[in-house]
């Protein structure tokens, strides 16, 4: 996207559908044991990453934690490359070496996929430092969960970003739980946003189930950062519908709570907004959904028939010895 341009909302809805259908399919393929290791799904949180990325340029930097499939898809990594990564195939975005928690895509400015809680927040600050160092007008978007805000690395990173006035938006995807621990049981503050105040970083709370609100808020902040570099913090309130990972039955929360959020579904919401405004018909929506499902099915096929990296080749990935052609 070029400066001043607005992403088409129907396209963004279509992206949200792609993410949802991708995750549903990933869940099914995990159960069929085509996918191994840990697998964390993003279902319910789609408006956060799509909203935020609708407000930035393609050359801005994006980094997140391990619940990362959606961030790669939203950054433009193909469903094929994402699914192939889950299958551990050489055609995956990290060549099958990283897996679900470690999606990387340099070309699309997706800097991971990081599985140690809190560890990527300083990296994001480093990327923002490089932007300022080179006197560019990019921004870094750093996504993380509510669980990350109690790690030392998070605190150190926020202080550094504020101290050096770096162009970064810290986006806390507050889905109320870190595994089975609710924010109430992990954090001494009444609200997460107050963490930002402690470092003199401007912050706001955003409704993460509302695509437009996320997009507009991020757009406003990014606009300000591009004029004069500074950090900002958003606490985006959202909800994950599934368990923490595929093995978590999520018995620490009630059915009623889940239902409450499902009724506020981000896809349903944007769809309703667009329909009300006459920008989307039911037929069009069904078509988008059908297309998303087909893309994901094709991705599964692609992943299935893709090759695995030959065993000897993994040794080429220990040290970098100059670019391979």
């Amino acid at each position: 996207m070029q400066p001043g341009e607005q992403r088409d909302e129907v396209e963004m809805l279509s992206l949200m559908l792609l993410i949802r259908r991708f995750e549903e399919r990933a869940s099914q393929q995990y159960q069929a044991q085509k996918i191994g290791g840990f697998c964390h799904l993003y279902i319910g949180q789609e408006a956060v990453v799509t909203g935020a990325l609708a407000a930035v340029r393609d050359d801005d930097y994006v980094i997140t934690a391990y619940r990362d499939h959606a961030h790669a898809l939203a950054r433009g990594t193909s469903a094929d490359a994402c699914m192939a990564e889950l299958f551990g195939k050489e055609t995956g975005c990290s060549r099958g070496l990283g897996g679900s928690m470690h999606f990387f895509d340099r070309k699309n400015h997706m800097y991971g996929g990081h599985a140690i809680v809190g560890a990527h927040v300083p990296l994001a600050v480093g990327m923002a430092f490089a932007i300022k160092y080179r006197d560019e007008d990019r921004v870094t978007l750093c996504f993380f969960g509510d669980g990350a805000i109690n790690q030392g690395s998070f605190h150190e990173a926020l202080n550094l970003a504020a101290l050096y006035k770096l162009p970064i938006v810290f986006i806390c995807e507050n889905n109320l739980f870190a595994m089975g621990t609710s924010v109430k049981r992990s954090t001494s503050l009444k609200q997460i946003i107050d963490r930002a105040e402690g470092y003199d970083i401007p912050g706001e709370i955003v409704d993460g189930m509302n695509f437009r609100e996320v997009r507009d808020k991020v757009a406003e902040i990014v606009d300000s950062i591009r004029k004069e570099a500074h950090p900002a913090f958003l606490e985006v309130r959202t909800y994950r519908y599934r368990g923490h990972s595929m093995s978590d039955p999520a018995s620490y929360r009630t059915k009623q709570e889940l239902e409450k959020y499902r009724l506020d579904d981000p896809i349903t919401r944007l769809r309703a907004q667009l329909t009300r405004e006459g920008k989307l018909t039911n037929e069009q929506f069904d078509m988008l959904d059908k297309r998303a499902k087909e893309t994901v099915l094709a991705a599964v096929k692609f992943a299935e028939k893709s090759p695995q990296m030959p065993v000897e080749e993994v040794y080429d990935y220990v040290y970098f010895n100059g670019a391979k052609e």
Partner: protein
Amino acid sequence: MREITYRQALNEALAEELERDPNVFLMGEEVAEYHGAYKVSQGLLERFGPRRIIDTPISENGFAGLGIGAAMVGLRPIIEFMTFSFSLVAFDQVVNNAPNMFLMSGGQFNIPITFRGPNGPAHQLAATHSHATENFYASVPGLKVCAPATPRDAKGLLKTAVRDDNPVLVLEAELLYSSKGMVEPPDEELLIPLGKADVKREGSDVSVICYAQTVPLALKVAAQLEEEDISAEIVDLRSIKPLDEKTIFDSVAKTHRVVIVEQDHPFCGVGAEICYRIQKNIFDALDAPILRVSQEDVPMPYNERLEKSVLPNADKLFAAVKQVCYA
């Protein structure tokens, strides 16, 4: 004796030590209400209450340090790392504070603390979640490190660790949590000393030295070797530091051939140290160079086939044994 899982054995050890000593408490991520990410602390919150079974935020450096501080003033913390891969976030506390305090304070502050949790590769958890940390920690003066392979050893070593007046790391293994074995009944006190290896299988042709996840591997290979008329003695270290040299040397004196199978990396791995000690002390007993089977010197890939290829496995161990036996 009755058959229980490794997980249950650890759970019993925790419960018995919590029962015995009111200064013992268990702290870590998801240990209380969730009963542990791997359910090792099942039922403990209900039995001992939230004063002693304590959930933490994701703050490894913080709660590891909290444990050390509490130990300085008389408590006996058990700190659970959800996995030892995450202990790296607390490396400063575990390596710089816990083991140094005693010497640094001129002997005023010993640190009776237990750090425990699963260690080593599990299955397709990729590079950040597959660390085998035993060689990092064993290289630090002042730390004790054990890595039990059976339910009985897990229970006995964990109980001993909690009673030890120094920092002890109990490196469990995710892939062993559901494995079963015979253990003394709960009313019989089971303490297994640190620094005592256990010959898990007697043999005469070759000593296979192993620990933790490599013990079942070695036992499996020993059965295969039997068919080739090679009699392997399986020496389970159980504790890496202190190291039971006597049991190792006795075995080597008998078999004259050694393969070490470890779950860490080859460079500066646990096996390198054992190798050094064997050649230094009983060089003349050796009939062949010592071989080591370890992980390959590669960060852990996610892909299943690649993961298998960089882990120690039965084929590699089998081949190494045949090589030292010139068979």
